[in-house]
């Protein structure tokens, strides 16, 4: 494929008739090229929808967080439980992203470069977590690794605690973000093909050398994109973690659990704590989005 530089945001196209996407009666009238009425209608609908649905609510949270000024926010940032939750969130996210990156790159190489029985099945299984409710993920984990689960007795005997402890939180987070790295890397690997790899082989490189010198540099932007997506997803997971974690403040309370637990409590301090954490998470999400938007053209250029 030729290297076309396509960025989502900046596509300047010549005007074509801009059709409306509603039922026949309204759109039956002939639209001449670049009919400004049609264009503006669509524009307003689209922008209004997005702003009303998303920007407005988000703005309200910002307003509620700082309703009492800067001081309450800063005060709640010193809340030891908040800090503990932040720490836990960081650790769990980093671990799960690392696991998913290793798995993701390996699975992508296997799926693209090799033929083996069950390849299609592997592909489908990797996509499963996206279609399942996170609560179901949590319940599934309990059914296998809980006290009364399939591995329950064995784990108890070995004195390993998974459910209601950090390992379960990590597992739940890994599951929900599973496909993200794989799905970003696979198209790039498919696009690049095996010719460079064969060329490297003909020049004397062994498998490790080929992976480090050829494969990895080729997928680096797609990989970065996938890693950021996974990080965002891992940090933001709630439903699955709600099921498998005991949510003990300071110990097994992730940032998202912190928001939930504090919001459900009564009292201005708890509410402020919830909003502060929510605001922080929102800021980080927007940061992720910006990074992703910056990475997207690089990823598409490869």
């Amino acid at each position, binding site marked *: 494929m030729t290297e076309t530089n396509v960025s989502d945001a900046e596509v300047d196209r010549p005007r074509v008739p801009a059709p409306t996407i509603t039922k026949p009666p309204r759109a039956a009238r002939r639209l001449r090229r670049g009919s400004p009425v049609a264009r503006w209608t669509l524009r307003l609908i689209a922008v209004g929808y997005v702003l009303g649905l998303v920007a407005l*609510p988000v703005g309200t*949270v910002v307003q509620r967080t700082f309703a009492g000024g800067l001081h309450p926010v800063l005060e709640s940032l010193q809340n030891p439980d908040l800090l503990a939750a932040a720490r836990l969130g960081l650790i769990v996210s980093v671990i799960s992203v690392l696991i998913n990156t290793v798995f993701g790159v390996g699975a992508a190489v296997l799926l693209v470069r090799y033929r083996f029985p069950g390849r299609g099945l592997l592909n489908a299984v990797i996509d499963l977590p996206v279609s*399942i409710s996170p609560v*179901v993920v949590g319940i599934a984990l309990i059914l296998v690794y809980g006290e009364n689960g399939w591995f329950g007795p064995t784990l108890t005997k070995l004195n390993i605690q998974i459910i209601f402890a950090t390992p379960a939180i990590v597992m739940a987070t890994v599951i929900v973000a599973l496909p993200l790295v794989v799905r970003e890397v696979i198209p790039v690997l498919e696009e690049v093909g095996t010719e460079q790899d064969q060329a490297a082989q003909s020049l004397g490189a062994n498998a490790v050398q080929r992976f480090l010198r050829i494969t990895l540099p080729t997928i680096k932007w797609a990989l970065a994109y996938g890693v950021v997506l996974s990080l965002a997803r891992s940090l933001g997971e709630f439903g699955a973690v709600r099921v498998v974690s005991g949510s003990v403040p300071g110990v097994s309370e992730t940032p998202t659990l912190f928001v939930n637990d504090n919001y459900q409590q009564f009292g201005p301090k708890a509410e402020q704590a919830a909003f502060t954490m929510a605001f922080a998470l929102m800021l980080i*999400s927007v940061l992720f989005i910006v990074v992703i938007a910056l990475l997207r053209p690089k990823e598409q250029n490869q």
Partner: protein
Amino acid sequence: MSLQEPITAPPPPRRRPRSVASGRLTSASGLGLGVGVLWLSLIVLLPIAAIVVTSFQDGLSTFWTSVSTSEALATLRLTVGAALLVTLLNAIFGTLIAWVLVRDQFFGKRVIEVIIDIPFALPTIVAGLVLISLYGPQGPFGVNLVGTREGVFLALLFVTLPFVVRSVQPVLIEMEQDVEEAAASLGASGFTIFRRIILPTIAPAILAGAALSFARALGEFGSVILISANLIGKTEVSSAYLLKLIESDDPVGAAGVATLLLIVAVVVLVVLDSLQKLTARRD
């Protein structure tokens, strides 16, 4: 560069080296595959199997009872119905938004692009907080949707916004416009062009986005629980009901409802996938 001792006959197969081009597994990649499959089994296959198996653990009748309690049915009606409605709306508005983003140019478009990604990147509970801040009792517009189905619906619409948009956008970008221009020069109206040329091309993408949107809406939890207030029979969604079941120590019941949800998801996804294959064939 030393070569091996003279061999007159091909060596036994297991010593045959694999070349990159052949695509057959080497011992290293075979091992990698084994590890990967083991890992997937532990974190995906086994847990899902556990759900299905546990739901029938006490027999078919128990399964049937647990999924047909009035509460369970109410949650299913609400959840599936809302998910379908939201998906339909997303198919329409998502396509429209994608169209405007790709074919139109205006000040602030980049900001809109970023805003669209927010629901996807935001933790679900934060989304829930965001929604209840605006549509709850302390909201600035005096609108209170807490405990209403409209609130649930809005929450689902919020979190599923990006799916169809992001699915359709790349296809629209890739589309070559000369086909449309040829049609226009032959006298086709804007709507005809859309119906006969553009829609068939983006239909698979719309369906793919719809599938993602439906699956997400079906299982959504964090963004819904705050605004729904979990009113039994009215605004309790299936995921909240599942949480209640597992917390009240009814794993079999929880597994049963979860299995039913999985079945619904599989059915709808298969339907959408077949529709996708049907529309994609025209290429």
